[in-house]
Protein backbone atom coordinates (compact mmCIF):
# COMPACT_ATOMS: atom_id res chain seq x y z
CA UNK A 1 0.00 0.00 0.00
CA UNK A 2 1.49 3.31 -1.11
CA UNK A 3 0.71 6.48 0.72
CA UNK A 4 1.70 10.04 -0.17
CA UNK A 5 1.80 12.59 2.59
CA UNK A 6 1.68 16.26 1.59
CA UNK A 7 2.27 18.24 4.76
CA UNK A 8 4.47 21.30 5.20
CA UNK A 9 5.07 20.91 8.91
CA UNK A 10 8.16 18.68 8.86
CA UNK A 11 7.86 17.38 12.39
CA UNK A 12 4.28 16.29 11.86
CA UNK A 13 5.12 14.82 8.47
CA UNK A 14 7.84 12.77 10.11
CA UNK A 15 5.54 11.46 12.83
CA UNK A 16 2.92 10.40 10.31
CA UNK A 17 5.56 8.75 8.15
CA UNK A 18 7.04 6.85 11.03
CA UNK A 19 3.72 5.60 12.35
CA UNK A 20 2.35 4.57 8.95
CA UNK A 21 5.54 2.81 7.94
CA UNK A 22 5.41 0.87 11.16
CA UNK A 23 1.88 -0.22 10.24
CA UNK A 24 3.23 -1.63 6.99
CA UNK A 25 2.53 1.18 4.53
CA UNK A 26 5.03 2.39 1.97
CA UNK A 27 5.14 6.12 2.43
CA UNK A 28 6.45 9.13 0.62
CA UNK A 29 6.28 12.64 1.96
CA UNK A 30 6.60 16.08 0.37
CA UNK A 31 6.19 19.45 1.98
CA UNK A 32 4.92 21.84 -0.63
CA UNK A 33 2.27 22.23 -3.27
CA UNK A 34 4.60 22.01 -6.30
CA UNK A 35 6.25 18.81 -5.23
CA UNK A 36 2.91 17.38 -4.23
CA UNK A 37 1.49 18.06 -7.67
CA UNK A 38 4.55 16.60 -9.31
CA UNK A 39 4.32 13.40 -7.27
CA UNK A 40 0.64 12.78 -7.91
CA UNK A 41 1.25 13.22 -11.64
CA UNK A 42 4.14 10.80 -11.73
CA UNK A 43 3.07 8.00 -9.44
CA UNK A 44 -0.05 6.15 -8.47
CA UNK A 45 -0.83 6.01 -4.77
CA UNK A 46 -3.45 4.12 -2.83
CA UNK A 47 -4.07 7.00 -0.53
CA UNK A 48 -3.01 10.62 -0.34
CA UNK A 49 -2.94 12.56 2.90
CA UNK A 50 -3.01 16.25 2.07
CA UNK A 51 -2.88 19.41 4.14
CA UNK A 52 -4.96 22.37 2.91
CA UNK A 53 -2.60 25.21 3.74
CA UNK A 54 0.59 24.52 1.80
CA UNK A 55 3.44 26.67 0.56
CA UNK A 56 2.86 27.73 -3.08
CA UNK A 57 -0.70 26.56 -3.21
CA UNK A 58 -3.84 25.10 -1.75
CA UNK A 59 -4.23 21.40 -1.02
CA UNK A 60 -7.73 21.53 -2.47
CA UNK A 61 -6.18 22.16 -5.91
CA UNK A 62 -4.25 18.92 -5.64
CA UNK A 63 -7.56 17.16 -5.09
CA UNK A 64 -8.92 18.84 -8.23
CA UNK A 65 -5.84 17.65 -10.11
CA UNK A 66 -6.33 14.10 -8.87
CA UNK A 67 -9.99 14.12 -9.88
CA UNK A 68 -9.05 15.52 -13.29
CA UNK A 69 -6.60 12.67 -13.73
CA UNK A 70 -9.34 10.29 -12.65
CA UNK A 71 -7.03 8.94 -10.02
CA UNK A 72 -8.26 6.01 -7.96
CA UNK A 73 -6.35 7.13 -4.89
CA UNK A 74 -8.22 7.74 -1.67
CA UNK A 75 -7.85 11.25 -0.31
CA UNK A 76 -7.78 12.43 3.29
CA UNK A 77 -7.60 16.12 4.06
CA UNK A 78 -5.79 17.11 7.22
CA UNK A 79 -6.20 20.72 8.20
CA UNK A 80 -5.57 23.02 11.11
CA UNK A 81 -8.61 24.98 10.05
CA UNK A 82 -11.47 23.01 11.41
CA UNK A 83 -13.84 24.94 9.24
CA UNK A 84 -17.10 23.61 7.99
CA UNK A 85 -16.65 25.29 4.59
CA UNK A 86 -13.24 23.68 4.10
CA UNK A 87 -14.60 20.32 5.03
CA UNK A 88 -17.61 20.58 2.73
CA UNK A 89 -15.47 22.01 -0.07
CA UNK A 90 -12.98 19.21 0.22
CA UNK A 91 -15.61 16.50 0.33
CA UNK A 92 -17.42 18.11 -2.59
CA UNK A 93 -14.24 18.03 -4.62
CA UNK A 94 -14.03 14.32 -4.01
CA UNK A 95 -11.96 13.87 -0.89
CA UNK A 96 -12.93 10.81 1.12
CA UNK A 97 -12.36 12.13 4.58
CA UNK A 98 -11.43 15.18 6.59
CA UNK A 99 -9.38 15.16 9.76
CA UNK A 100 -8.82 18.27 11.85
CA UNK A 101 -5.50 18.83 13.53
CA UNK A 102 -4.59 17.73 16.09
CA UNK A 103 -5.49 14.12 15.42
CA UNK A 104 -4.34 10.77 16.77
CA UNK A 105 -1.94 8.97 14.45
CA UNK A 106 -3.93 5.84 15.24
CA UNK A 107 -7.05 7.59 14.01
CA UNK A 108 -5.39 8.59 10.75
CA UNK A 109 -4.26 4.99 10.28
CA UNK A 110 -7.74 3.64 10.89
CA UNK A 111 -9.21 6.08 8.40
CA UNK A 112 -6.59 5.32 5.74
CA UNK A 113 -7.37 1.65 6.14
CA UNK A 114 -11.08 2.23 5.82
CA UNK A 115 -10.66 4.33 2.69
CA UNK A 116 -8.34 1.92 0.97
CA UNK A 117 -10.73 -0.92 1.68
CA UNK A 118 -13.68 1.05 0.38
CA UNK A 119 -11.82 2.13 -2.76
CA UNK A 120 -10.49 -1.30 -3.47
CA UNK A 121 -13.51 -2.32 -5.56
CA UNK A 122 -12.09 -5.41 -7.21
CA UNK A 123 -9.79 -6.63 -4.52
CA UNK A 124 -10.78 -8.46 -1.42
CA UNK A 125 -12.25 -6.55 1.43
CA UNK A 126 -11.38 -9.01 4.09
CA UNK A 127 -9.11 -8.00 6.93
CA UNK A 128 -7.33 -10.78 8.70
CA UNK A 129 -5.30 -10.99 11.82
CA UNK A 130 -4.23 -14.57 12.36
CA UNK A 131 -7.38 -16.54 13.05
CA UNK A 132 -9.62 -13.47 13.09
CA UNK A 133 -11.29 -12.49 9.83
CA UNK A 134 -13.34 -9.31 9.24
CA UNK A 135 -15.57 -9.06 6.21
CA UNK A 136 -15.88 -5.33 6.04
CA UNK A 137 -18.90 -5.03 3.78
CA UNK A 138 -21.04 -7.53 5.60
CA UNK A 139 -19.58 -6.50 8.93
CA UNK A 140 -19.12 -10.18 9.65
CA UNK A 141 -16.43 -11.46 11.97
CA UNK A 142 -15.20 -15.01 12.14
CA UNK A 143 -12.65 -16.70 14.35
CA UNK A 144 -11.26 -19.82 12.74
CA UNK A 145 -14.13 -19.49 10.23
CA UNK A 146 -16.65 -19.60 13.06
CA UNK A 147 -18.83 -16.49 13.00
CA UNK A 148 -19.14 -14.48 16.17
CA UNK A 149 -21.78 -11.94 17.04
CA UNK A 150 -20.42 -8.49 17.80
CA UNK A 151 -22.23 -5.25 18.58
CA UNK A 152 -21.55 -2.24 16.37
CA UNK A 153 -19.18 -0.72 18.85
CA UNK A 154 -17.33 -3.99 19.37
CA UNK A 155 -16.94 -4.37 15.63
CA UNK A 156 -15.56 -0.85 15.32
CA UNK A 157 -13.20 -1.54 18.20
CA UNK A 158 -11.86 -4.69 16.60
CA UNK A 159 -11.40 -2.99 13.24
CA UNK A 160 -9.54 -0.15 14.94
CA UNK A 161 -7.36 -2.55 16.89
CA UNK A 162 -6.37 -4.46 13.79
CA UNK A 163 -5.60 -1.28 11.85
CA UNK A 164 -3.35 -0.21 14.68
CA UNK A 165 -2.06 -3.63 15.58
CA UNK A 166 0.90 -3.85 17.91
CA UNK A 167 0.62 -0.19 18.91
CA UNK A 168 -0.20 1.19 22.27
CA UNK A 169 -3.59 2.86 22.05
CA UNK A 170 -4.65 5.29 24.75
CA UNK A 171 -8.15 5.20 26.16
CA UNK A 172 -8.66 8.73 24.86
CA UNK A 173 -7.79 7.73 21.31
CA UNK A 174 -10.06 4.69 21.46
CA UNK A 175 -12.95 6.65 22.94
CA UNK A 176 -12.63 9.38 20.36
CA UNK A 177 -12.48 6.90 17.50
CA UNK A 178 -15.65 5.16 18.48
CA UNK A 179 -17.75 7.88 20.07
CA UNK A 180 -16.36 10.97 18.39
CA UNK A 181 -15.32 13.88 20.55
CA UNK A 182 -18.89 14.37 21.67
CA UNK A 183 -18.33 11.86 24.42
CA UNK A 184 -16.28 14.55 26.16
CA UNK A 185 -19.50 16.37 26.87
CA UNK A 186 -20.93 13.43 28.70
CA UNK A 187 -18.33 11.37 30.42
CA UNK A 188 -14.70 10.56 30.87
CA UNK A 189 -13.37 7.59 28.94
CA UNK A 190 -13.64 4.92 31.62
CA UNK A 191 -16.73 3.59 29.89
CA UNK A 192 -14.68 1.96 27.12
CA UNK A 193 -13.53 -0.62 29.59
CA UNK A 194 -16.76 -2.62 29.49
CA UNK A 195 -16.82 -2.68 25.69
CA UNK A 196 -13.26 -3.95 25.52
CA UNK A 197 -13.97 -6.52 28.18
CA UNK A 198 -16.94 -7.85 26.20
CA UNK A 199 -15.03 -7.95 22.92
CA UNK A 200 -12.16 -9.76 24.52
CA UNK A 201 -14.49 -12.31 26.08
CA UNK A 202 -16.30 -12.97 22.80
CA UNK A 203 -13.02 -13.44 20.92
CA UNK A 204 -11.56 -15.80 23.50
CA UNK A 205 -14.84 -17.72 23.77
CA UNK A 206 -14.74 -18.24 20.00
CA UNK A 207 -11.30 -19.77 20.32
CA UNK A 208 -9.12 -16.80 19.50
CA UNK A 209 -5.89 -16.13 21.24
CA UNK A 210 -6.06 -13.27 23.77
CA UNK A 211 -4.69 -10.42 21.65
CA UNK A 212 -6.04 -7.47 23.62
CA UNK A 213 -3.37 -6.63 26.13
CA UNK A 214 -3.93 -4.12 28.86
CA UNK A 215 -1.04 -1.71 29.17
CA UNK A 216 -0.55 -0.55 32.69
CA UNK A 217 -2.59 2.67 33.16
CA UNK A 218 -2.04 3.64 29.53
CA UNK A 219 -4.56 1.87 27.42
CA UNK A 220 -4.54 -1.22 25.25
CA UNK A 221 -2.40 -2.96 22.68
CA UNK A 222 -3.66 -5.49 20.15
CA UNK A 223 -0.83 -7.88 19.62
CA UNK A 224 0.18 -11.48 19.67
CA UNK A 225 2.35 -13.00 22.35
Amino acid at each position, binding site marked *: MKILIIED*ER*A*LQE*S*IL*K*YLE*HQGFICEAVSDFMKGKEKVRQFAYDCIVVDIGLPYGNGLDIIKELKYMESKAGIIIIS*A*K*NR*LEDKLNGLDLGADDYL*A*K*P*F*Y*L*SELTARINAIIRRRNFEGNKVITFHEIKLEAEARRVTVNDKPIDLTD*KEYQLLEYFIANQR*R*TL*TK*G*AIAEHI*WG*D*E*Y*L*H*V*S*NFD*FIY*SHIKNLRKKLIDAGSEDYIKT*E*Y*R*TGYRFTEG
Partner: protein
Amino acid sequence: MKLLTKTTLYFLIALIPLLAVAGFYLFNQFSKEINYRSDKELISAEIAWIRYLRSEAENGTTFILRTPDLSIFPTDAPIAERPTIVNTNGYGINEIPYRQLSQVVSISGNAYQIIIRQSQEQKTALVTDVTRIMLFVFIGLFVATLIFNWVISQRLWMPFRRSLNKIRSAELQRIEAIHFEQTNIKEFNELNASLNYMKGKIHKDYVNMKEFTENAAHEMQTPVAVVLSKLELLLQDNNLKDEQVQAVLESTSALRQLSKLNESLLLLAKIENNQFETTIEINLADITKKYLRLFDEFIKEKQLTVQTDFSFSFPVKLHPLLADSLIMNLLGNAIKYNYTAGKIEIAVSENSYHINNTSMLPPIQPGKLFMRLNTSDNNKQTSNGLGLAIVKKIADVNHLHIAYHAEDGVHSFDITKI
Protein backbone atom coordinates in the same frame (compact mmCIF):
# COMPACT_ATOMS: atom_id res chain seq x y z
CA MET B 1 -34.80 68.26 23.90
CA LYS B 2 -34.59 68.38 20.14
CA LEU B 3 -31.89 70.53 18.66
CA LEU B 4 -34.46 72.44 16.66
CA THR B 5 -36.70 73.01 19.69
CA LYS B 6 -33.75 74.30 21.60
CA THR B 7 -32.68 76.66 18.81
CA THR B 8 -36.24 77.86 18.48
CA LEU B 9 -36.47 78.42 22.19
CA TYR B 10 -33.32 80.50 22.18
CA PHE B 11 -34.63 82.36 19.19
CA LEU B 12 -37.91 83.12 20.90
CA ILE B 13 -36.19 84.22 24.10
CA ALA B 14 -34.01 86.53 22.05
CA LEU B 15 -37.13 87.79 20.35
CA ILE B 16 -38.70 89.06 23.58
CA PRO B 17 -36.38 92.08 24.16
CA LEU B 18 -36.39 92.68 20.43
CA LEU B 19 -40.16 92.86 20.41
CA ALA B 20 -40.06 95.08 23.50
CA VAL B 21 -37.71 97.50 21.78
CA ALA B 22 -39.83 97.39 18.64
CA GLY B 23 -42.93 98.04 20.73
CA PHE B 24 -41.29 100.92 22.49
CA TYR B 25 -40.18 102.43 19.20
CA LEU B 26 -43.61 101.95 17.70
CA PHE B 27 -45.24 103.60 20.69
CA ASN B 28 -42.85 106.53 20.47
CA GLN B 29 -43.53 107.03 16.81
CA PHE B 30 -47.27 106.95 17.32
CA SER B 31 -46.97 109.14 20.35
CA LYS B 32 -45.01 111.73 18.39
CA GLU B 33 -47.61 111.64 15.66
CA ILE B 34 -50.39 112.13 18.18
CA ASN B 35 -48.48 114.97 19.82
CA TYR B 36 -47.92 116.60 16.49
CA ARG B 37 -51.62 116.55 15.73
CA SER B 38 -52.57 117.66 19.23
CA ASP B 39 -50.12 120.50 18.98
CA LYS B 40 -51.60 121.68 15.72
CA GLU B 41 -55.08 121.57 17.17
CA LEU B 42 -53.96 123.29 20.38
CA ILE B 43 -52.24 126.07 18.47
CA SER B 44 -55.19 126.64 16.20
CA ALA B 45 -57.46 126.69 19.28
CA GLU B 46 -55.15 129.19 20.94
CA ILE B 47 -55.17 131.38 17.89
CA ALA B 48 -58.95 131.28 17.86
CA TRP B 49 -59.12 132.16 21.52
CA ILE B 50 -56.63 135.00 21.17
CA ARG B 51 -58.62 136.33 18.28
CA TYR B 52 -61.79 136.08 20.34
CA LEU B 53 -60.12 137.66 23.37
CA ARG B 54 -58.83 140.51 21.33
CA SER B 55 -62.24 141.26 19.88
CA GLU B 56 -63.82 141.00 23.30
CA ALA B 57 -61.08 143.10 24.95
CA GLU B 58 -62.05 146.02 22.80
CA ASN B 59 -65.28 146.03 24.74
CA GLY B 60 -63.19 146.41 27.87
CA THR B 61 -64.04 143.07 29.39
CA THR B 62 -61.60 141.29 31.59
CA PHE B 63 -61.61 137.51 31.27
CA ILE B 64 -61.25 134.91 33.84
CA LEU B 65 -62.09 131.47 32.54
CA ARG B 66 -61.32 128.31 34.46
CA THR B 67 -62.48 124.99 33.16
CA PRO B 68 -60.56 121.75 33.29
CA ASP B 69 -59.65 122.04 29.65
CA LEU B 70 -59.31 125.76 29.27
CA SER B 71 -58.01 128.43 31.63
CA ILE B 72 -57.65 132.04 30.69
CA PHE B 73 -56.75 134.53 33.38
CA PRO B 74 -54.73 137.74 33.74
CA THR B 75 -51.25 137.31 35.03
CA ASP B 76 -48.16 139.26 35.96
CA ALA B 77 -45.82 136.90 34.25
CA PRO B 78 -43.73 138.15 31.41
CA ILE B 79 -45.07 137.69 27.95
CA ALA B 80 -43.81 134.68 26.00
CA GLU B 81 -43.01 134.71 22.36
CA ARG B 82 -43.98 131.08 21.78
CA PRO B 83 -46.37 128.72 23.46
CA THR B 84 -44.91 125.94 25.53
CA ILE B 85 -46.48 122.59 24.96
CA VAL B 86 -45.93 119.82 27.48
CA ASN B 87 -47.36 116.50 28.43
CA THR B 88 -49.10 116.38 31.73
CA ASN B 89 -50.98 113.85 33.63
CA GLY B 90 -53.82 116.04 34.63
CA TYR B 91 -55.47 115.98 38.00
CA GLY B 92 -57.60 113.70 40.01
CA ILE B 93 -57.70 109.99 40.30
CA ASN B 94 -57.94 108.96 36.69
CA GLU B 95 -54.67 110.07 35.42
CA ILE B 96 -55.48 110.67 31.86
CA PRO B 97 -52.56 112.02 29.87
CA TYR B 98 -53.04 115.51 28.55
CA ARG B 99 -51.27 117.64 26.05
CA GLN B 100 -51.09 121.12 27.53
CA LEU B 101 -50.37 124.38 25.80
CA SER B 102 -49.54 127.37 27.92
CA GLN B 103 -48.57 130.87 26.87
CA VAL B 104 -48.65 134.29 28.38
CA VAL B 105 -49.98 136.61 25.73
CA SER B 106 -50.67 140.29 25.68
CA ILE B 107 -54.23 141.14 24.89
CA SER B 108 -54.72 144.89 24.52
CA GLY B 109 -51.87 145.59 26.88
CA ASN B 110 -52.95 143.07 29.53
CA ALA B 111 -51.01 139.92 30.07
CA TYR B 112 -53.14 136.83 29.96
CA GLN B 113 -52.18 133.30 30.78
CA ILE B 114 -53.75 130.86 28.38
CA ILE B 115 -53.71 127.17 29.22
CA ILE B 116 -55.37 124.78 26.85
CA ARG B 117 -55.40 121.07 27.47
CA GLN B 118 -56.37 118.27 25.28
CA SER B 119 -57.02 114.78 26.47
CA GLN B 120 -54.74 112.21 25.01
CA GLU B 121 -56.66 109.22 26.24
CA GLN B 122 -55.95 107.45 23.00
CA LYS B 123 -52.36 107.17 24.19
CA THR B 124 -53.38 104.77 26.95
CA ALA B 125 -55.20 102.81 24.35
CA LEU B 126 -52.12 102.98 22.20
CA VAL B 127 -49.96 101.31 24.84
CA THR B 128 -52.48 98.52 25.10
CA ASP B 129 -52.74 98.27 21.35
CA VAL B 130 -49.04 98.17 20.77
CA THR B 131 -48.58 95.58 23.51
CA ARG B 132 -51.39 93.55 22.06
CA ILE B 133 -49.94 93.74 18.57
CA MET B 134 -46.55 92.74 19.82
CA LEU B 135 -48.12 89.86 21.70
CA PHE B 136 -49.95 88.80 18.56
CA VAL B 137 -46.73 89.01 16.59
CA PHE B 138 -45.00 86.92 19.22
CA ILE B 139 -47.73 84.29 19.30
CA GLY B 140 -47.88 84.34 15.52
CA LEU B 141 -44.16 83.82 15.30
CA PHE B 142 -44.32 81.11 17.93
CA VAL B 143 -47.01 79.18 16.09
CA ALA B 144 -45.31 79.78 12.77
CA THR B 145 -42.00 78.52 14.15
CA LEU B 146 -43.72 75.44 15.52
CA ILE B 147 -45.16 74.68 12.14
CA PHE B 148 -41.89 75.48 10.43
CA ASN B 149 -40.11 73.33 12.94
CA TRP B 150 -42.27 70.42 12.14
CA VAL B 151 -41.91 70.88 8.42
CA ILE B 152 -38.18 71.52 8.69
CA SER B 153 -37.54 68.60 10.94
CA GLN B 154 -39.53 66.43 8.59
CA ARG B 155 -37.72 67.52 5.48
CA LEU B 156 -34.47 69.22 6.32
CA TRP B 157 -33.41 66.63 8.86
CA MET B 158 -34.44 63.74 6.69
CA PRO B 159 -30.90 62.87 5.57
CA PHE B 160 -29.78 62.99 9.19
CA ARG B 161 -32.57 60.63 10.20
CA ARG B 162 -31.68 58.29 7.37
CA SER B 163 -28.07 58.15 8.49
CA LEU B 164 -29.16 57.61 12.07
CA ASN B 165 -31.42 54.72 11.11
CA LYS B 166 -28.61 53.17 9.13
CA ILE B 167 -26.29 53.38 12.11
CA ARG B 168 -28.97 51.91 14.36
CA SER B 169 -29.61 48.94 12.16
CA ALA B 170 -25.92 48.42 11.35
CA GLU B 171 -24.61 44.94 12.02
CA LEU B 172 -20.94 44.35 12.28
CA GLN B 173 -20.70 41.62 9.71
CA ARG B 174 -22.74 43.53 7.15
CA ILE B 175 -21.36 46.99 7.85
CA GLU B 176 -19.54 47.12 4.55
CA ALA B 177 -22.76 47.24 2.58
CA ILE B 178 -23.95 50.39 4.34
CA HIS B 179 -23.43 53.64 2.46
CA PHE B 180 -24.11 57.13 3.78
CA GLU B 181 -25.02 59.05 0.63
CA GLN B 182 -24.45 62.64 -0.49
CA THR B 183 -27.05 65.19 0.56
CA ASN B 184 -27.42 68.84 -0.38
CA ILE B 185 -26.52 70.01 3.10
CA LYS B 186 -22.89 70.65 3.87
CA GLU B 187 -23.00 69.60 7.53
CA PHE B 188 -24.71 66.33 6.77
CA ASN B 189 -22.24 65.68 3.99
CA GLU B 190 -19.39 66.14 6.43
CA LEU B 191 -21.11 63.82 8.89
CA ASN B 192 -21.84 61.19 6.26
CA ALA B 193 -18.33 61.37 4.87
CA SER B 194 -16.96 60.79 8.36
CA LEU B 195 -19.41 57.96 8.89
CA ASN B 196 -18.34 56.37 5.62
CA TYR B 197 -14.74 56.62 6.66
CA MET B 198 -15.47 55.21 10.09
CA LYS B 199 -17.55 52.39 8.64
CA GLY B 200 -14.70 51.44 6.34
CA LYS B 201 -12.28 51.44 9.22
CA ILE B 202 -14.59 49.39 11.43
CA HIS B 203 -15.06 46.88 8.67
CA LYS B 204 -11.34 46.61 8.09
CA ASP B 205 -10.63 46.22 11.81
CA TYR B 206 -13.41 43.69 12.11
CA VAL B 207 -12.09 41.61 9.24
CA ASN B 208 -8.56 41.83 10.61
CA MET B 209 -9.73 40.90 14.06
CA LYS B 210 -11.75 38.00 12.76
CA GLU B 211 -8.91 36.73 10.66
CA PHE B 212 -6.50 37.18 13.50
CA THR B 213 -8.67 35.27 15.95
CA GLU B 214 -9.21 32.48 13.50
CA ASN B 215 -5.63 32.34 12.36
CA ALA B 216 -4.28 32.46 15.89
CA ALA B 217 -6.55 29.64 16.95
CA HIS B 218 -5.76 27.60 13.86
CA GLU B 219 -2.04 28.21 13.96
CA MET B 220 -2.07 27.00 17.53
CA GLN B 221 -3.48 23.63 16.43
CA THR B 222 -0.47 22.82 14.24
CA PRO B 223 2.20 22.89 16.96
CA VAL B 224 -0.22 21.06 19.26
CA ALA B 225 -0.64 18.44 16.54
CA VAL B 226 3.14 18.12 16.25
CA VAL B 227 3.63 17.60 19.98
CA LEU B 228 0.72 15.18 20.26
CA SER B 229 2.02 13.09 17.36
CA LYS B 230 5.48 12.96 18.94
CA LEU B 231 3.98 11.92 22.27
CA GLU B 232 1.94 9.22 20.56
CA LEU B 233 5.08 7.85 18.94
CA LEU B 234 6.98 8.08 22.20
CA LEU B 235 4.31 5.97 23.85
CA GLN B 236 5.15 3.13 21.46
CA ASP B 237 8.62 2.86 22.94
CA ASN B 238 8.76 -0.32 24.98
CA ASN B 239 11.74 0.84 26.95
CA LEU B 240 9.90 3.63 28.72
CA LYS B 241 9.64 3.44 32.47
CA ASP B 242 6.26 3.60 34.10
CA GLU B 243 6.66 7.16 35.30
CA GLN B 244 7.80 8.23 31.85
CA VAL B 245 4.71 6.67 30.32
CA GLN B 246 2.69 8.48 32.95
CA ALA B 247 4.34 11.78 32.05
CA VAL B 248 3.60 11.22 28.36
CA LEU B 249 -0.04 10.43 29.13
CA GLU B 250 -0.47 13.45 31.33
CA SER B 251 1.12 15.71 28.73
CA THR B 252 -1.15 14.24 26.08
CA SER B 253 -4.23 14.80 28.15
CA ALA B 254 -3.26 18.39 29.00
CA LEU B 255 -2.53 19.17 25.36
CA ARG B 256 -5.82 17.66 24.24
CA GLN B 257 -7.55 19.86 26.75
CA LEU B 258 -5.70 22.89 25.45
CA SER B 259 -6.73 22.05 21.94
CA LYS B 260 -10.39 21.60 22.90
CA LEU B 261 -10.30 24.84 24.84
CA ASN B 262 -8.92 26.55 21.80
CA GLU B 263 -11.69 25.09 19.68
CA SER B 264 -14.35 26.24 22.10
CA LEU B 265 -12.95 29.76 22.29
CA LEU B 266 -12.83 29.86 18.52
CA LEU B 267 -16.44 28.73 18.38
CA LEU B 268 -17.41 31.46 20.84
CA ALA B 269 -15.57 34.06 18.78
CA LYS B 270 -17.28 32.85 15.63
CA ILE B 271 -20.71 32.99 17.25
CA GLU B 272 -19.95 36.47 18.52
CA ASN B 273 -18.93 37.53 15.04
CA ASN B 274 -22.24 36.18 13.77
CA GLN B 275 -20.51 33.82 11.43
CA PHE B 276 -23.33 31.36 11.74
CA GLU B 277 -26.05 33.09 9.84
CA THR B 278 -28.99 31.08 8.79
CA THR B 279 -32.52 31.17 7.55
CA ILE B 280 -33.17 27.54 8.32
CA GLU B 281 -35.71 26.67 10.96
CA ILE B 282 -34.70 23.80 13.14
CA ASN B 283 -36.84 21.75 15.45
CA LEU B 284 -35.01 21.36 18.74
CA ALA B 285 -37.00 18.22 19.48
CA ASP B 286 -35.38 16.50 16.47
CA ILE B 287 -31.91 17.53 17.56
CA THR B 288 -32.65 16.27 21.05
CA LYS B 289 -33.77 12.89 19.70
CA LYS B 290 -30.54 12.66 17.73
CA TYR B 291 -28.40 13.31 20.79
CA LEU B 292 -30.49 10.99 22.97
CA ARG B 293 -29.60 8.24 20.49
CA LEU B 294 -25.97 9.31 20.46
CA PHE B 295 -25.70 9.43 24.23
CA ASP B 296 -27.93 6.40 24.72
CA GLU B 297 -25.07 4.27 25.95
CA PHE B 298 -24.04 6.77 28.61
CA ILE B 299 -27.63 7.20 29.72
CA LYS B 300 -28.00 3.45 30.09
CA GLU B 301 -24.70 3.11 31.85
CA LYS B 302 -25.78 5.65 34.45
CA GLN B 303 -29.22 4.02 34.61
CA LEU B 304 -30.87 7.36 34.04
CA THR B 305 -34.58 7.67 33.45
CA VAL B 306 -35.28 10.03 30.59
CA GLN B 307 -38.78 11.43 30.32
CA THR B 308 -39.53 13.23 27.10
CA ASP B 309 -42.52 15.16 25.86
CA PHE B 310 -42.11 15.92 22.19
CA SER B 311 -45.80 16.40 21.45
CA PHE B 312 -45.09 19.88 20.12
CA SER B 313 -42.31 21.13 17.95
CA PHE B 314 -40.31 24.21 18.88
CA PRO B 315 -38.91 25.56 15.63
CA VAL B 316 -36.11 28.08 15.96
CA LYS B 317 -33.98 29.84 13.41
CA LEU B 318 -30.63 28.39 14.22
CA HIS B 319 -27.57 27.25 12.30
CA PRO B 320 -27.50 23.43 12.41
CA LEU B 321 -24.05 23.48 13.93
CA LEU B 322 -25.18 25.77 16.73
CA ALA B 323 -28.34 23.78 17.31
CA ASP B 324 -26.15 20.70 17.74
CA SER B 325 -23.81 22.52 20.06
CA LEU B 326 -26.69 23.88 22.14
CA ILE B 327 -28.40 20.55 22.69
CA MET B 328 -25.14 18.63 23.03
CA ASN B 329 -24.04 20.92 25.85
CA LEU B 330 -27.36 20.96 27.68
CA LEU B 331 -28.07 17.25 27.35
CA GLY B 332 -24.41 16.40 27.93
CA ASN B 333 -24.44 18.36 31.18
CA ALA B 334 -27.71 16.75 32.24
CA ILE B 335 -26.06 13.35 31.85
CA LYS B 336 -22.61 14.21 33.11
CA TYR B 337 -23.67 15.93 36.31
CA ASN B 338 -26.40 13.42 37.07
CA TYR B 339 -26.05 10.62 39.59
CA THR B 340 -26.62 6.95 39.01
CA ALA B 341 -30.31 6.15 38.59
CA GLY B 342 -31.12 9.85 38.37
CA LYS B 343 -33.69 11.51 36.15
CA ILE B 344 -33.75 13.74 33.10
CA GLU B 345 -36.90 15.46 31.88
CA ILE B 346 -37.20 17.12 28.51
CA ALA B 347 -40.36 18.90 27.45
CA VAL B 348 -40.83 20.72 24.18
CA SER B 349 -43.81 22.99 23.87
CA GLU B 350 -44.75 25.35 21.06
CA ASN B 351 -42.68 28.17 22.41
CA SER B 352 -40.32 26.77 24.97
CA TYR B 353 -37.77 24.06 25.48
CA HIS B 354 -37.33 22.67 28.95
CA ILE B 355 -34.68 20.29 30.25
CA ASN B 356 -34.01 19.33 33.84
CA ASN B 357 -31.88 16.80 35.62
CA THR B 358 -31.24 15.55 39.10
CA SER B 359 -27.78 16.26 40.45
CA MET B 360 -25.71 16.13 43.59
CA LEU B 361 -24.06 19.41 42.67
CA PRO B 362 -25.12 22.56 44.48
CA PRO B 363 -27.05 25.10 42.40
CA ILE B 364 -24.86 27.23 40.19
CA GLN B 365 -24.58 30.73 41.57
CA PRO B 366 -26.51 33.12 39.32
CA GLY B 367 -23.56 35.43 38.84
CA LYS B 368 -21.27 32.65 37.72
CA LEU B 369 -23.77 30.74 35.64
CA PHE B 370 -22.84 31.62 32.10
CA MET B 371 -19.37 32.93 32.81
CA ARG B 372 -16.49 31.71 30.75
CA LEU B 373 -13.92 29.39 32.27
CA ASN B 374 -15.83 29.20 35.50
CA THR B 375 -15.26 25.62 36.47
CA SER B 376 -16.15 24.49 39.92
CA ASP B 377 -13.63 22.21 41.55
CA ASN B 378 -15.78 19.12 41.25
CA ASN B 379 -15.67 18.96 37.47
CA LYS B 380 -12.25 20.26 36.55
CA GLN B 381 -11.49 16.94 34.87
CA THR B 382 -14.20 16.83 32.30
CA SER B 383 -15.22 20.41 31.74
CA ASN B 384 -13.45 23.35 30.24
CA GLY B 385 -16.01 25.75 31.66
CA LEU B 386 -17.05 27.01 28.27
CA GLY B 387 -20.09 24.80 27.67
CA LEU B 388 -22.65 27.05 29.31
CA ALA B 389 -20.93 30.18 28.00
CA ILE B 390 -21.40 28.76 24.50
CA VAL B 391 -25.02 27.88 25.26
CA LYS B 392 -25.66 31.41 26.48
CA LYS B 393 -23.91 32.97 23.51
CA ILE B 394 -25.88 30.84 21.06
CA ALA B 395 -29.11 31.89 22.76
CA ASP B 396 -28.12 35.56 22.80
CA VAL B 397 -27.28 35.91 19.15
CA ASN B 398 -30.30 33.95 18.01
CA HIS B 399 -32.94 35.87 19.95
CA LEU B 400 -33.51 33.17 22.48
CA HIS B 401 -33.75 33.53 26.21
CA ILE B 402 -32.26 30.96 28.52
CA ALA B 403 -33.14 30.70 32.18
CA TYR B 404 -31.66 28.48 34.87
CA HIS B 405 -33.39 27.30 37.97
CA ALA B 406 -32.37 24.87 40.69
CA GLU B 407 -34.58 23.45 43.39
CA ASP B 408 -34.45 20.33 45.55
CA GLY B 409 -31.52 18.90 43.66
CA VAL B 410 -33.16 19.40 40.26
CA HIS B 411 -31.40 21.73 37.88
CA SER B 412 -33.43 23.04 34.98
CA PHE B 413 -32.86 25.13 31.91
CA ASP B 414 -35.61 26.80 29.92
CA ILE B 415 -35.21 28.21 26.44
CA THR B 416 -37.86 30.60 25.18
CA LYS B 417 -38.11 32.92 22.23
CA ILE B 418 -37.70 36.58 23.02
